[in-house]
């Protein structure tokens, strides 16, 4: 490979430009055309068609389509043909075609023998400010402000250049209100305002800032900003917007990480790779849910059998992850390179797929937070269950007698059988628990299938009907009165639930073994038990059964889904129907029966039939069905034993019930990475060559190698590699990006106005030196965000008034020179965002519930459907008066009140919220039931604070709403409203005022 001279300085450019300029003195040079229009795709980084146009050899050598030029013969040169083409072969393919003049310049260049030194053309996009290393700058020295905050010294330089005078400091009441909304997201109480206003010590502001930053509400407030970028929600989104009940631990992690001031590089690392870090800290695992909290399409990923749809859904899924990581941490819009090279930034399509490969082992889903914890709980559970099982089995024998289910399970009737074992009614074949069947094939109805089991005479698939006789025993017993059926049957007659059992509970009782015995007959099935007197007498001694007579008892029910008229159950003794339960449904619950058996040998037959409407879910189960002595002679000793066993079983059940569920979080399921191919035009059905995991080249070629991995690399290696690339101090982006985000929220506008796009399409920094200085402060200050907040909050710039009292007509006034306030000669006034407004209403109304952490509050009615339905409601409960950060966020059904106030849709990442003012919004703040509810509570609070005096109520109300004392005129107006319309109306009015909704 030839030595390459990388030209970056403008001096080198002049040289190069000068060289080409000789050929065409009055216009653009050929090399400039190649540089600006060609080498983006035919250069060092991207070699489309194996053609390079960034050096003379490349031009002469050509690419896949042949030589680019014929030296001296422009007419025969492919380059000219392609730039002058008018069909889809035209180059460059994007943007305007080259002008005739430009083509003429290229012609002349070729005809003159392509005069070119040995320098390479450099893609000028690589010179973009954001990719350059952080530049240390000395804080400007100002004679007048020698001890000022460095931030102010940077800003002062820019202002003095433009002749702009900043506004003075805002009043104390303005400052505390601004700081409070900004840092903790709620208004200060009148008491806090008074305390600060009267605190004349020099460090009053500093202490106030420190107190606010130390408040746990700081994390709650600033987590909201981060969740906007993470597009967090508590449901999947898309068509079947199912609940994600375990999403919230991530939200709590963000709150805690901010409150504990987790160093920002750790904040990044844990969110990209926390689950694969060696330390196995459960908190890190939760942090990595950052990759998963965005939308996810259940129908495309899971429900459809179509591989084409699945591939597209997965590609969208990975795109979401890559976009989120790269825009939030690095401010690079790599997603623009999914279908083609990035149109503005030097990001090739290859690099997009390289990043996709980093995450190709990441799937989303519920996962355990901590494996060890789950194992410990499971071990305890299994040990408790083992103990309980032994007790329950003995209890069952003592209290119930001979269990038919146990016999079907291959047991002796006293618990030796195996749960799940069954017998196929159409063949009498034995079925092990794992041998599950659906519809049985080759069923012959009414054929008697004898079994080997001494207790079971035979089984059969019944299909009766008017006058039809069914053989039910080997001895030739005949049954009548069994209805006609579809002669279909599902699975087997089992000890325990059948295959795909809808439920084991009925009437609120869980009948599942081992607590109960469960004999399941899925329609259509019949079984005849052979109750031989001698066998029964072996099971119950004469002492236990003095009368020698037996009774068959238990309960029966329909355990399927159908509420009514599901299936029928029959009990026959010696071929006679003695009890029947036609048309049982789930709503019928459990039915008891008790049947005295005849003396001597007898045949007991149980039949389930389909009620003439198909066998779907026709799960007839006999619960605790047993043969027991008619008049048992239970000894006192036995009774005691039963009692103590029952008690012990109950205690163990209590322990089992109290066992915690292992904590779960909706997060990353780490898998073996799938191979990633470059997709032509982003089309999943047009895969190209395989792309290996890698990071971006534009930030520095050396740095990129950190995350360049081979095809065998694991998911952990890939994500750790990328995290290392992002967190490296050589990577200037993360520090710049987060510093700018903090600045954006403190001033309402970033130093870079596009906080998630630092590329060529984004805004330029208004104060580049300050941005780099702050970024270095962050890197060198242990990546502490709170330190940075403090630095900003202590600046004069932050504390400046937002109110320009001047008329603003003088030509030299700041408002005329810098109307957009780029120079920050004043603080920007802001409207409260949706959540802060809601929280502020709760706060002044005295409703706030400060409970932190845990599952979100649900202010909606939930209806289970194919696509679940969420109807937002205004509830009157302290649970929903928690701060808005704890809202259960439904992705496809945005909250109507908050949405009217520009709460963003969590389908997209939102680095900057819109602030709109609409009539619909004003209707919402005036009339929404939530506002009326809080106005009412506000009124009640005032009455309890100051009693019934209207004037006192007015004063207190304004203090609470505006964080300041009212003027005499305001007191008069407010009192007048209370007296003529009522206190409620004053409260509602205050919550609607601009002064309440805007922060100076």
């Amino acid at each position, binding site marked *: 490979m030839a030595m390459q001279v990388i030209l970056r300085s403008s001096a080198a450019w002049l040289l190069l430009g000068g060289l080409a300029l000789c050929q065409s003195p009055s216009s653009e040079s050929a090399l400039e055309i190649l540089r600006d229009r060609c080498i983006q795709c035919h250069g060092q980084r991207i070699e489309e068609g194996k053609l390079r146009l960034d050096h003379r050899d490349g031009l002469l050598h050509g690419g896949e389509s042949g030589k680019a030029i014929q030296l001296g013969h422009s007419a025969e040169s492919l380059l000219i043909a392609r730039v002058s083409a008018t069909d889809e072969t035209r180059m460059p393919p994007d943007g305007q075609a080259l002008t005739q003049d430009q083509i003429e310049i290229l012609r002349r260049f070729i005809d003159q023998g392509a005069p070119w030194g040995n320098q390479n053309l450099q893609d000028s996009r690589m010179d973009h400010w954001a990719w350059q290393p952080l530049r240390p700058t000395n804080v400007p020295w100002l004679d007048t402000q020698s001890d000022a905050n460095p931030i102010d010294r940077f800003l002062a330089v820019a202002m003095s250049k433009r002749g702009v005078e900043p506004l003075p400091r805002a009043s104390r009441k303005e400052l505390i209100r601004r700081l409070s909304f900004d840092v903790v997201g709620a208004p200060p109480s009148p008491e806090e305002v008074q305390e600060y206003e009267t605190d004349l010590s020099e460090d009053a502001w500093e202490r106030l800032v420190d107190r606010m930053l130390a408040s746990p509400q700081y994390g709650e407030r600033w987590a909201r900003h981060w969740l906007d970028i993470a597009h967090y929600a508590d449901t999947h989104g898309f068509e079947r917007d199912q609940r994600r009940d375990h999403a919230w631990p991530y939200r709590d992690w963000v709150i805690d990480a901010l409150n504990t001031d987790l160093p920002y590089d750790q904040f990044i690392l844990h969110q990209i790779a926390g689950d694969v870090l060696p330390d196995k800290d459960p908190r890190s695992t939760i942090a990595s849910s950052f990759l998963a909290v965005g939308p996810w399409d259940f129908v495309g990923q899971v429900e459809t059998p179509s591989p084409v749809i699945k591939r597209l859904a997965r590609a969208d899924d990975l795109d979401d992850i890559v976009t989120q990581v790269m825009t939030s941490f690095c401010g690079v819009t790599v997603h623009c390179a999914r279908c083609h090279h990035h149109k503005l930034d030097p990001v090739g399509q290859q690099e997009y797929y390289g990043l996709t490969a980093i995450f190709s082992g990441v799937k989303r889903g519920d996962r355990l937070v901590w494996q060890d914890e789950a194992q410990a709980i499971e071990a305890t559970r299994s040990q408790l269950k083992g103990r309980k099982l032994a007790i329950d089995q003995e209890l069952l024998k003592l209290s119930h007698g001979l269990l038919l289910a146990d016999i079907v399970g291959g047991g002796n009737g006293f618990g030796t059988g195996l749960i799940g074992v069954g017998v196929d009614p159409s063949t009498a074949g034995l079925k092990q628990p794992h041998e599950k069947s659906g519809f049985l094939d080759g069923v012959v109805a009414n054929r008697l299938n004898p079994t080997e089991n001494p207790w079971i005479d035979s089984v059969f698939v019944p299909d009766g009907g008017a006058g039809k006789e069914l053989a039910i025993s080997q001895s030739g017993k005949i049954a009548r009165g069994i209805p006609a059926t579809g002669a279909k049957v599902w699975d087997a007659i089992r000890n325990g639930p059948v295959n795909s059992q809808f439920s084991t509970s009925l009437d609120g009782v869980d009948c599942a073994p081992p607590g109960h015995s469960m004999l399941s007959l899925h329609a259509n099935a019949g079984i005849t038990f052979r109750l031989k007197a001698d066998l029964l007498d072996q099971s119950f001694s004469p002492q236990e059964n003095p009368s020698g007579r037996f009774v068959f008892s238990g309960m029966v029910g329909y355990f399927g889904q159908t509420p009514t008229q599901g299936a029928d159950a029959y009990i026959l003794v010696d071929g006679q129907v003695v009890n029947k339960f036609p048309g049982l449904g789930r709503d019928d619950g459990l039915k008891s029966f008790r049947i005295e058996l005849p003396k001597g040998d007898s045949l007991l037959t149980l039949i389930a039939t389909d009620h003439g409407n198909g066998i779907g879910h026709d799960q007839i189960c006999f619960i605790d069905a047993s043969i027991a002595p008619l008049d048992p002679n239970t000894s006192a000793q036995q009774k005691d034993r039963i009692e103590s066993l029952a008690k012990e079983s109950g205690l163990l059940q209590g322990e089992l019930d109290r066992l915690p569920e292992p904590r779960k979080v909706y997060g990353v399921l780490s898998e073996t990475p799938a191979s990633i191919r470059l997709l032509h035009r982003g089309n999943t059905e047009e895969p190209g060559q395989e792309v290996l995991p890698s990071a971006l080249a534009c930030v520095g070629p050396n740095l990129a190698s950190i995350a360049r991995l081979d095809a065998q690399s694991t998911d952990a290696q890939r994500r750790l590699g990328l995290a290392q690339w992002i967190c490296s101090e050589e990577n200037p982006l993360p520090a710049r990006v987060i510093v700018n985000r903090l600045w954006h929220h403190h001033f309402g506008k970033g130093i870079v106005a596009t906080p998630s796009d630092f590329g060529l399409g984004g805004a330029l920094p208004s104060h580049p030196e300050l941005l780099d200085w702050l970024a270095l402060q962050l890197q060198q200050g242990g990546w502490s965000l709170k330190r940075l907040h403090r630095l900003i909050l202590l600046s004069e710039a932050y504390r400046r008034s937002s109110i320009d009292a001047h008329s603003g007509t003088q030509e030299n006034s700041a408002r005329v020179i810098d109307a957009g306030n780029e120079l920050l000669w004043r603080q920007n006034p802001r409207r409260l965002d949706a959540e802060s407004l809601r929280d502020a209403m709760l706060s002044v109304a005295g409703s706030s519930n400060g409970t932190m952490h845990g599952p979100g509050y649900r202010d909606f009615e939930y209806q289970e459907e194919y696509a679940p339905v969420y109807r937002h409601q205004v509830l009157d409960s302290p649970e929903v008066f928690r701060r808005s950060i704890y809202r259960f966020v439904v992705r496809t059904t945005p909250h109507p009140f908050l949405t009217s106030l520009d709460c963003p849709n969590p389908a997209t990442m939102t680095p900057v919220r819109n602030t709109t003012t609409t*009539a619909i919004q004003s209707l919402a703040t005036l009339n929404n039931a939530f506002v009326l509810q809080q106005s009412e509570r506000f009124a009640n609070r005032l009455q309890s604070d100051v009693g019934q005096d209207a004037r006192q109520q007015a004063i207190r109300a304004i203090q609470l709403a505006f964080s300041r004392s009212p003027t005499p005129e305001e007191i008069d107006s407010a009192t007048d409203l209370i007296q003529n319309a009522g206190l409620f109306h004053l409260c509602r009015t205050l919550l609607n005022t601009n002064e309440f909704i805007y922060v100076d």
Partner: protein
Amino acid sequence: MSIKAPCILPMQSSRRDWLGRIGSGLGMIACQALLHRSSHAMAGPSPSGQRGLHHAPVAQHVIEIFCPGGLSHVDTWDYKPQLERLHGSPFDSELGKQTFAGVAGKHAKSFWPFRQHGQSGLWISELFPKLAQCIDDMAFVHSMQSKSALHGPAMFMMNSGFIQPGFPSMGSWVTYALGSQTENLPEFVVLPDPRGLPPGGIINWGSGFLPAVHQGTVMEIGGSAEAIGDLFPARSMSAQSQQRSIELLQKWNREHSSQRQADTLLEARIASFELAGKLQMSVPEVVNLEQETEATHRLYGIEDPDAGPFGKQCLLARRLVERGVRFVQIYCGAENTSKKAIRPNWDSHEDIVRDHGYWGRILDTGASALIGDLKSRGLLESTLVICTSEFGRQPFMQGEQKGRDHNPGAFTAWMAGGGIRGGVAYGASDPIGFKAQENPTYCYDLHATALHLLGIDHQRLTFYHNGIQRRLTDVHGKVIRELIA
């Protein structure tokens, strides 16, 4: 009983007083201008001077009828004689595995016979006897495709050009570009099926990253005065108390604003309460269908228990457009449920005859009434009517079922009025309606054409978001000249 009187700006006289008193900030004229362009004055970044129209518009309004669930083109608009010949023969089972349900059955001809109609002689199936009478006003695009076979993403694509949620819907883009003709009603109104919201929910008419003022406002067709959310307080209160409250509110707001001269946002919010008051007066009026004649009620089939609700949606759409609303979207169908009955939308997997039979009559009645009514009132020329679904259905049965699976490969959309040449068909699907064949197109071209008729160049209507100058038509779209009169 609660009294829900208009409460924001009570009497005309006091309103005039109020406007007269805005001496310090904006005068009355300025204030009204602000109201008029409220959205823009208050919106975020402006799209670099693309506010106005790019060329003279033909259409002023759009009424879009959306049939969610997947309307079967081969049973309705797209006549496929070849399918009659193949009827009953099995479809390629390998290709069939690529479909949403993953199982293809036998080819199936239309369940309703096709006939030619009108001077144009275009074909339409007997499912739509009334629309067949309008055929010379309708222009069909038979080569529509979608990039997704799933309801949610395909709905989003048809509405916003993207299969991902979170992009602005067409109604949002149009109102963002053109603003409103009326300050008394929302500029973009959505009339969902009273049975419920369509797949994907309210994101279908979301404004995405555009300012919230451009999102669709849902209006109920129940006839209640409170047709939009929060129009009136959720509890009864005396009109007098409300009036006093509002007067004090605006007094305080004006005082607050007068000390902060640099801030137009504060003025805008004062004005927004004025605008809210207008909504309180106009919305109950527009939703009151009793004002219409009995003949009109009959035309729209208002009394019909099945077709009535959609008839009301169509009638209300006409009333909204008459009053200057820019964009109205009507949903003919709701979200799927797990209930085993007539499907609540066009998603006829199990039984085409049952579900399309039901919905067909509904669409036929309302849409034909709408076209005829607009025409007789001289509104059709300035109102572009669009009817579409998110995708079509397959030319074969879904396995052993009597229904058809989703088909994103081909479907039909049609337009009428607003500068559209009637009685024409553009593009074609293959001989059985499986894939678009001649002039294959996506929603992009439909959107580009609609924007063109509204005087907007789809390539120049852009908004910067996360690194990209976004467009309704993404990087695609061409105006279908063949459909333009």
